[in-house]
């Protein structure tokens, strides 16, 4: 038993205490989770063996989100666009980090915060876009899904290795 514990600590695998904190309604990261989920759903539809199964999957997934298939498609377009925008932010942040590392400089905190802010703005814009392009019933249902069922199965925690 002691050997196992020693191995876990030596490899850095330490299970920390979990503190589940409240997640507010329309928290931008809720939408990041949804956009990622919706994009994965599209990949699952595309990987169907034939068109009939793909249609069946699309109908089932739209039903799961409580929206029509037309709104499901619109939500997919918004998700794809938002994630592409975030990939751009991440690429810029990574390039900046690499540049600073190569120059043996500490990354500027203000710049890192600015990249995070760009990500948050992209998510907020995505939420507004969903509201704009979905039917009123579709937006209402999807908003309820994201802030209800999806949020209820989501946890967040400040993670740090300060206790290492």
């Amino acid at each position: 038993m002691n050997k196992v514990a020693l191995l876990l600590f030596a490899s850095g695998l330490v299970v920390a205490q979990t503190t589940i904190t409240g997640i507010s309604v329309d928290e931008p990261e809720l939408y990041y989770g949804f956009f990622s989920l919706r994009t994965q759903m599209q990949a699952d539809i595309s990987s169907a063996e034939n068109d009939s199964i793909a249609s069946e999957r699309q109908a089932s997934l739209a039903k799961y989100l409580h929206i029509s298939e037309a709104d499901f498609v619109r939500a997919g377009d918004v998700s794809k666009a938002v994630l592409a925008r975030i990939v751009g932010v991440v690429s810029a942040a990574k390039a900046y980090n690499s540049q600073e590392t190569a120059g043996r400089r500490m990354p500027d905190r203000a710049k890192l915060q600015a990249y995070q802010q760009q990500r948050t703005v992209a998510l907020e814009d995505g939420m507004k876009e969903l509201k704009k392009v979905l039917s009123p019933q579709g937006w209402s249902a999807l908003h309820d899904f994201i802030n209800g069922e999806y949020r209820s199965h989501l946890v967040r925690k400040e993670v740090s290795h300060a206790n290492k």
Partner: protein
Amino acid sequence: MLTSSTRRIARSAVMCSLGLFWALCAQAQCQQETVTGWGASSTSIRLDSNHVQAYGQSWTSGDVYLQVTPYVESWQQLNGSTISIGYTGNNNPGSTAQVTLTTQLDPNGPGSYSIYSSHWFYWACANYTQNLGNTFGNAVVVYRPTITGVSAFWWLGGVLADNGYYAQSGLTANPNGASGTPYWTVNTVNCGGSVSLGCNPCGVRPASRPDCGQHER
């Protein structure tokens, strides 16, 4: 009197200010930071006629979230017993770690399908992995599609006269949540009576025994 920890931080600060020992500076920065770790498990979904699917997700946000690599491991369960496991490794910082678990219903049968996930976050700068804990998605209960109706109406085959009885009947098909076209077949003996039925949409559907020449009405 300085503690060893205080001396270490002071030494790092001096080295950093001189632009020396970049690794130590990075380590010092890494030690002071936190990111927000996120984890989710979806409700299980009846994806199509023969599959149940669910998702597990981990990701990070915050000023230095690119320093942390998210991981997720998910377990799909049927009536509380694990039937499949998925894990995302080698995921890039800044992206979502996402597992999709899909199970074919045919070999597993009806029951309560659910998923739970464990969420991990790896700090490369400190070679440290932290666990967020587990998340649990809602279960979906899968029932087998059924047909109900009169029994063995097809046994009229082989008689010389059927006295007005038909080798056809109405069977009520209940998909029980299955999408697509549920399909049933009942086989007895060759041309002695077998029946097949598919429905989309389902409800009361006519079913006939196959054409067996002189025996068919």
